[in-house]
């Protein structure tokens, strides 16, 4: 046999082998399998997920639980992979999204199943606060089950630093903050630490909330508050002033080093969500109220600016029955009490076992359950604006921080709201 022919046969075999995956039957479909997609890989959250999965397996023996996590970028890497799977109509059975309008695109594209019936059969309409249910509802229906609640409108500080500076306490309004900033700067410290772009957006959101109040803030996302109006312009102007007394020109590379600057004493305040609690208390082992303390961000006492991780049921899920069982686990009192103390967040339900939540979490839970607390959703973390508008706001904010043109920023954000709705 000539060499040429052997070579040809070999090439043919290689080509056939390469084509093999195309015809293999989709993963030897075991009926007792469940694929759940999340970006919970950090310390604390992966333990919380594991605890919930153990409990789920105890209730559903023999289930092969596939934990499809993608780490990095607070979920932004995971979202890119998820998008390609959803576009290819190859969805995981259940996937994580931030509760709220982050899910709007999925709903309008028919990627997720309406779960309103599950809410009714499990009695969740009574155990989740109405402010949360409002934000979960998209076009009249509910499509995801929230596992936890984080709070965004918080300002973190070291109480010892405050007394050393002779400050009576954390500022109650942004104008008081700016007054304190003068004192702090005269002592050679940075009044406010910030981090990468998203932490600046987080700051913008808390300034808008503090300056415009609950109704003004909510109106920004529904169109009732005019972005181009004088009140909003004033609030954005305050934001620029706050940014001017921060370390934005040499901002920390991430939110942990941002908090480090406060704890090491080079900066005095940092506005950040309450995932800081897990970092300060569990990772850095600092003492609550002695070495670190927290208050509602200026002007937002009695307001709870929330974000929440929630799970969905995909349209076309291969294991839809098990996925529903998973969602019941996510929404159950036991499941939430297993997950949240480990992650350092509080349950979305208002009936948890209080003895599990200490220090900051106890205070947080009390505020969450207080019927007088007004609940609003976070912009930066996907509750009040859909993905398209949110990413356009990212761009506009990046330009605002560079050129300081408030009028242009407000006009762009306003225009983009209509373009992307």
């Amino acid at each position, binding site marked *: 046999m000539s060499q040429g022919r052997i070579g040809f046969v070999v090439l043919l075999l290689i080509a056939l082998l390469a084509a093999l995956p195309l015809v293999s039957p989709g993963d030897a479909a075991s009926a007792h399998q469940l694929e759940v997609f999340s970006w919970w890989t950090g310390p604390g959250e992966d333990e919380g997920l594991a605890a919930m999965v153990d409990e789920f397996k105890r209730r559903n023996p023999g289930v092969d639980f596939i934990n499809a996590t993608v780490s990095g970028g607070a979920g932004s890497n995971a979202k890119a992979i998820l998008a390609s799977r959803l576009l290819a109509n190859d969805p995981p059975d259940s996937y994580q999204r931030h509760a709220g309008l982050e899910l709007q695109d999925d709903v309008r594209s028919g990627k997720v199943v309406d779960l309103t019936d599950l809410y009714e059969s499990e009695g969740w309409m009574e155990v989740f606060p109405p402010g949360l249910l409002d934000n979960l509802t998209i076009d009249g229906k509910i499509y995801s089950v929230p596992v936890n609640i984080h709070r965004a409108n918080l300002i973190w500080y070291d109480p010892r630093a405050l007394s050393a500076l002779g400050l009576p306490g954390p500022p109650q309004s942004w104008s008081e903050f700016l007054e304190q900033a003068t004192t702090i700067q005269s002592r*050679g410290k940075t009044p406010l630490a910030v981090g990468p772009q998203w932490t600046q957006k987080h700051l913008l959101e808390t300034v808008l909330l503090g300056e415009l109040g609950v109704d003004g803030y909510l109106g920004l996302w529904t169109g009732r508050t005019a972005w181009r109006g004088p009140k909003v312009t004033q609030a954005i102007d305050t934001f620029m002033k706050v940014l001017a007394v921060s370390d934005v020109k040499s901002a920390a*590379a991430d939110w942990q080093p941002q908090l480090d*600057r406060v704890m090491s004493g080079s900066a005095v305040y940092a506005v950040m969500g309450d995932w800081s609690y897990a970092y300060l208390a569990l990772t850095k082992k600092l003492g609550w109220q002695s070495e670190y303390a927290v208050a509602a961000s200026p002007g937002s006492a009695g307001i709870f600016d929330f974000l929440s991780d929630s799970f969905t049921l995909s349209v076309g899920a291969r294991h839809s029955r098990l996925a529903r069982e998973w969602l019941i686990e996510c929404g159950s009192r036991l499941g939430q009490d297993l997950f949240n103390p480990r992650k350092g967040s509080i349950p979305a339900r208002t009936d948890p076992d209080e003895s599990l939540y200490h220090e900051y979490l106890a205070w947080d839970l009390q505020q969450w359950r207080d019927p007088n607390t007004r609940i609003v959703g976070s912009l930066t973390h996907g509750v009040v604006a859909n993905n398209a508008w949110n990413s356009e706001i990212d761009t506009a904010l*990046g330009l605002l921080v*560079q050129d300081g043109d408030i009028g242009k920023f407000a006009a762009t954000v306003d225009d983009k709201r209509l373009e992307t709705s």
Partner: protein
Amino acid sequence: MSLPVDVHPPPRGGRIPRAASVHRVGRRRRPQWLAGLLLILPSLLAIGLFVYGFIGWNVRVSVTSWRGLTPTYDFVGVRNYLALWGDERWRLDVRNIVIFTTVFVIGSLALGFGMATLLEKGVRGQGFYRSVYLFPMAISFVATAIVWRWLLDNGTGSDTAGINKLLSDVGLGWLRSDWHRSEGGWAIAAVALPAGWALSGYVMALFLAGMRNIPNAVREAARIDGATEAQVFWHVTRPMLRPVTVSAIVILLHISLKTFDLLYAIDQRSLKIDTPSLYMWFTTFDGGFYNRGATIATVLLIGIALVVGPYIRSSLRRGGAR
């Protein structure tokens, strides 16, 4: 990096198949091109589908209004392209990529050439230096970015770190810079530093290979004719290094236009160091603007083709004349 230094045309005529066909003189002659076609068919199909097919698909998406998770294949003409040129962020990105490319290409060339010249002179422990200079290329751009993010830190006072700390420790504190946090175009120019650091070793290797290829006899002859060392360099070495230089420039240019991971990791979403490829990623996967992402990708492809195309054509022509 997949670009070969020099593109050779396939060997002409296929001498070997002809020798094999001698056996089959008695049999019915099959057309000679058939076996060849069958051999390259798998890769032809794969390239046709996965490269050109997807390019075509991408261009198709760039003329639609597809946004979000519902693919839309309508036709809106060049609206997306026009919108891009009215987009302030895009204009900023174009400015940034031009600055980045200029600093990165010139810097890497100069640095690589300098190192090659020094090594060519025959330093003791040449092999060691050669490997050391090449190592940065073996590190992924993301790891490079994480390290340089710290080196280029611009904290002040007690937060001083990285290069600024080094400078102030040796009494050169006045050289302190904000690096990638600087105002205007300086930020993106500073990021060309780690990129150049990573690639200059590779350029050095290219130049070193080129220099080794210049026969010593030519240089000797020039010296005997009374040329000074500078004249030998300018009139003998430089022209003979031209093909290597052109290859190096083309490789660096297309790497520069595609650079993503380094910029992504060094300061996430900072518009100061935003480039078209980053904008493409964020607008597609954060915002779901598939139409805009595809438009940016198409413009990038055209940009790279404008750089690489003439080069490949000229190398093919050169190869054919041989």
